[in-house]
């Protein structure tokens, strides 16, 4: 039998501790959200759904939820086709300028979001997009594009462009051959990119802090404001729901990616 070296034990212990550090804070909000106590007590004195009730019966929270879902949905609907078209062009074209464009599309990951947020705020203030739904959607499309582009480019890498050539030589035009031959094969990475763009829009906070207002405030902005004032356990309930939604979407996306190999 193989003996386990001390170094290996240390490695396993260290890894386990770090993984606990990573996952524990995400899990701790679940029992807090089901606690009956007004103040944070752990373990909770008894279980209750009062914070979920508070959330679902509060018109302000409900309106914010609606804004978040509408913005995230529109973001996906716009960012996905733009990102797919861009990724396709980048992978097929041999133009030198495409490398620069590729880098430009990744800019939202490079520029600190606080800077983007303040800049967008100044521009929106000039054109009247502050505190509007289109303003929020546009900003989130910009933030979501890199996820779609990265995911679809990875998908296109394992796709053989010769197949599309064949379809075209058999008389299909470029558009039809893309939809009939290419798209079905990169579908998984398109869906994964779309899911990541959705999560990105759902979680986005900093730009919303600057440009959203009035009735068009997403959930994250209201949560942030509430957190600054006092710690309301309703936020634990909302956080639990948001985390559950993210987890399910990520599992969906990774299951799709694995299927495509």
């Amino acid at each position, binding site marked *: 039998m193989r003996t386990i070296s001390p170094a290996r034990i240390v490695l396993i212990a*260290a890894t386990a501790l770090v993984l606990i550090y990573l996952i524990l804070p*995400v899990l701790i909000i679940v029992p807090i959200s089901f606690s009956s106590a007004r103040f*944070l007590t752990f373990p909770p004195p008894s279980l209750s759904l009062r914070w979920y009730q508070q959330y679902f019966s509060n018109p302000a929270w409900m309106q914010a939820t609606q804004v978040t879902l509408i913005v995230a949905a529109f973001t996906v609907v716009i960012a996905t086709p733009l990102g797919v078209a861009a990724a396709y062009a980048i992978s097929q074209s041999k133009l030198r300028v495409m490398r620069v464009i590729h880098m*430009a599309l990744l800019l939202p990951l490079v520029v600190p979001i*606080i800077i983007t947020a303040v800049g967008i705020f*100044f521009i929106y203030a000039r054109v009247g997009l502050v505190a509007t739904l289109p303003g929020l959607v546009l900003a989130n*499309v910009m933030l979501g594009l890199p996820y779609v582009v990265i995911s679809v480019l990875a998908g296109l890498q394992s796709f053989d462009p010769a197949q599309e050539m064949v379809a075209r030589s058999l008389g299909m035009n470029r558009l039809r051959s893309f939809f009939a031959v290419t798209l079905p094969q990169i579908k998984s990475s398109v869906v994964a990119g779309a899911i990541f763009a959705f999560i990105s829009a759902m979680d986005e906070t900093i730009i919303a802090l600057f440009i959203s207002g009035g009735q068009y405030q997403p959930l994250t902005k209201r949560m*942030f404001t509430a*957190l600054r004032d006092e710690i309301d356990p309703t936020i634990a309930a909302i956080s639990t729901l948001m985390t559950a939604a993210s987890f399910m979407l990520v599992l969906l996306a990774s299951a799709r990616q694995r299927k495509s190999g």
Partner: protein
Amino acid sequence: MLALVSPALLVILLLIVLPVGWLAWQSIYHDGFTLEHYRRILSEDIYWRSFALTFEISLLVTVLALVLGYPVAYAANAVSKAWSVVILALVVLPFWTSVLVRAYAWLALLQRTGVINQFLRYLDVIGEPLALVHNTFGTVVATVHILLPFMVLPLYATMQKIPNDLMQAGASLGGSPAFTFFRVFLPLSLPGVLAGSTMVFVLCLGFYITPELLGGGRTVMVSMLVSRNVELYNQFGAASAVAVVLLLSVLLIFFVVSRFISLDRVLGQK
């Protein structure tokens, strides 16, 4: 092909290039050209201290993320496929949880009446609750937590490409496990270390939510200077100048790093 990229490119130009360009313009122009805002950043204590603090915190966070992240990436690479999937899942899932939710979770854990203080008092280890949050400590703990996946994923990607034969060759030639690790594996994993460290450091430089919610007003990072100058004082020129200096720092770091490794490697994650 250019027609296909142009809608996406237009979004990027209008919503990031133009806004950032506007900031740069606003930082030097206000009824005439002026470098007043930059002079203030250089001369006024509060700006100077904030930049210094931000770089210190970013460095600390990067080192901590590397120390915590390296063993995890190493383990994910060394164990069987099934365990590796489990480890990576535990790294990636928090990654896709809202930063705001995680900041809230850390508040719940660290505050005076929080989970950790209650637990320690229950065990009678401490009499008075510890001040774990609303200070730099709380900010660092939560920021490392949020940025750790950005370290682990590039490390793991690099380690996966290190051929196992090399370690076996080192061992068969008489090298102890420690020797082959330090002389063969570690040097080969350095590109991953650089990629992960760059991403963590740069993201930390611009971090806003954790210092704002967990710093208790004392940990004024550069991002907070920007937002306060906009929201509280309506000092748009000053905010723009701070933003420009921060952006230039970030771009300079990326430029220097790109001399050593491909930037795709740094940005390819998430």
